[in-house]
């Protein structure tokens, strides 16, 4: 298939594998930030191709995994209201809140609809003027512009039966928190290519300088990741700490200015709780004050309940790259995709789910 097969070519992959092997002289710990990259690495077995002295640890870039329980509980509460149609990306439906999940809310009569695009949710609002459509706006800088566009459009059309439950998160503050942690062992980062396509990668330059750590903006296909790994270890072996771009066909230093403008018109930066990671200052987005008519939290006066999470899994350490999914004693035993103990086992971008689906046969 055009524009896909080129980036999965076995011969080119093996050439990059050999180049990496020739370049590495000692152990390095690398982190891919984005969950989409984690899945490519595990699905295609990229970690089986690179020298064992290179350790790939998986970052916190799975939005479904880090969306706080409190917001999932709010989405479930909204879905239970008879006037509400709750639209969400399919991945969020199985993520457990403190007591239930959206699939169960649906089975109990809640009108929960999986959509592929926030524009579908907007369409539902136009089609059902007697109902109120809430879109569960999760994700990083990648999904934020399209979600912002729905509010922009709803305001323009005077559509008052549409709102967002906003759970947006920002990547650079989380990477800063990770680098600042005394337990951090990551020496180089594969930066998220699609986030950078929107925001530009200049945002990572300060982090690179401050912590003396290299970043390579990487894509999502097997060859993208192999090339990003090669660029990253070249920097490390040469003692450089710069921001480089592997994903040149999509990401630029300045990013998509129009998307950024639309985002900042609709959203403002706020502090956010990350599931498994805790509170991180300036790491989220919320709707601006003037947009209360499209803010589900304000329309429905949703109380910020503190949702308690009983102990059970090591997802916090998995999300921080300190441990691997298969280090967890519950992995594949008490914790499976049908009965997840933690969000990383639920999402198609979660590290535990990637290992469960693709790697169980290699478990010791």
């Amino acid at each position, binding site marked *: 298939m055009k524009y896909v097969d080129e980036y999965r070519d076995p011969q080119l992959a093996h050439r990059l594998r050999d180049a990496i092997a020739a370049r590495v002289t000692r152990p390095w710990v690398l982190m891919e930030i984005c969950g989409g990259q984690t899945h490519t690495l595990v699905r295609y077995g990229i970690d089986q191709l690179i020298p064992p002295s290179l350790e790939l640890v998986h970052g916190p870039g799975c939005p479904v995994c880090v969306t706080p329980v409190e917001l999932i509980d709010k989405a479930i509460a909204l879905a239970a209201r008879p006037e509400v149609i709750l639209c969400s990306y399919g991945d969020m439906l199985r993520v457990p809140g403190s007591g239930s999940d959206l699939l169960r809310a649906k089975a109990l009569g809640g009108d929960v609809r999986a959509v592929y695009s926030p524009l579908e949710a907007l369409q539902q609002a136009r089609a059902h003027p007697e109902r109120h459509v809430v879109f569960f706006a999760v994700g990083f800088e990648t999904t934020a512009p399209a979600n912002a566009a729905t509010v922009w459009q709803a305001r323009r059309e005077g559509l008052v039966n549409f709102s967002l439950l906003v759970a947006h998160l920002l990547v650079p503050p989380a990477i800063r928190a990770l680098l600042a942690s005394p337990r951090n062992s990551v020496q180089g980062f594969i930066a998220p290519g699609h986030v950078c396509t929107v925001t530009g990668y200049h945002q990572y330059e300060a982090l690179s300088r401050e912590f003396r750590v290299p970043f390579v903006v990487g894509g999502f296909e097997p060859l993208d990741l192999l090339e990003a790994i090669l660029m990253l270890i070249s920097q490390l072996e040469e003692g450089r700490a710069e921001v480089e771009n592997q994903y040149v066909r999509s990401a630029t230093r300045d990013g998509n200015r129009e998307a950024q403008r639309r985002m900042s018109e609709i959203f403002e930066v706020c502090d956010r709780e990350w599931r498994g990671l805790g509170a991180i200052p300036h790491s989220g987005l919320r709707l601006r004050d003037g947009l209360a008519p499209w803010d589900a939290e304000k329309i429905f006066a949703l109380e910020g309940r503190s949702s308690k999470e*009983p102990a059970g899994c090591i997802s916090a350490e998995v999300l921080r790259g300190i441990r691997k999914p298969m280090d967890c004693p519950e992995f594949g035993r008490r914790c499976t995709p049908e009965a997840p*103990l933690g969000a990383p086992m639920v999402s198609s971008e979660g590290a535990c789910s990637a290992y469960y689906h693709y790697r169980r046969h290699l478990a010791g």
Partner: protein
Amino acid sequence: MAENASVTLTCPAPLTASDTVLLGHGSGGTLSASLLREIFLPAFDNPALARLDDQAIVGVNGVRLAFTTDSFVVKPLFFPGGNIGSLAVNGTINDLAVGGATPLFLSAAFIVEEGLSMDVLRRVVRSMRSAAATAGVPIVTGDTKVVEKGKGDGLFINTSGLGIVGRETDLSANQARPGDKVLLSGTIGQHGIAILAQREGLGFATTLESDSAPLHTLAAAILERTSEVRCMRDPTRGGLSSALNEIAAQSHVGMELVEQAIPVQQEVRGACELLGLDPLYVANEGKLVAIVGPSGAEQALAALRAHPLGREAQIIGTVTEAHPGLVALRTALGTSRIVDMLTGDQLPRIC
């Protein structure tokens, strides 16, 4: 990510047991399997059922009968390449065929929602008549129920089928042995993607048609050519992955598939890339998987390829002693990964 936070960071309690039925319980994947294991099998326990094949084989006065039933709730009722009626006829014929049975008779039961257009019903029934005639299997009994408006979704159809199995034929999903070959009769995923493209809101167009077809002559062609066939399946809901996982689990063997040997049409690959689906999990309605002993594999492949429905047949993998119960895939890059059973529900109501 304050350090003090990490100590208390935890995850929610598992939502294992469900006290309500979820859509995923009808997916043909792991949730369906748990429903069988926990509710139906303990209640109805008997040797014919316990084989867990697509059909029961029962002996009556020295004759071996194959008996099966299937309900169809596909949405929309009409889709490129077929409709709920032709699907209901072919689907039940296929459940008999993969047991090595010659299909003899079908039943058809209709659950109709009040308000359904009579024209729709007529078109569905005409299509069933035509599918039954093509396959040479008459519909000999039936039933109709009508439910109030809003209590059904247009039309649901149940078909049951009766067939006869030769004395020497003994196929079952528990008979795969290490060294056996895995054969697939053609390209996967067309049915699921053709249905998906018809659903509202997705906004993509395709020329793909469902592969819905009766497989009994294809199945008979393999069985005529070699006696090495261990079992056959038609990978419908849950896709190729779920069918192979069921065989691996019931036979206590592993499998190793070769990614490049699995035929997938470009349109299906493209749609799957866009929608984040994996063709291995997408439904088929006219494909056959056969596990065949090594010495009969080439003959079986030749038999498949000589049939109009099997021209693109491939040997896609081998049954292994390693990792029993798990299906692994050798990727184009030479690495290895699991092909798991479908979890949850990739795409509801595709059959």
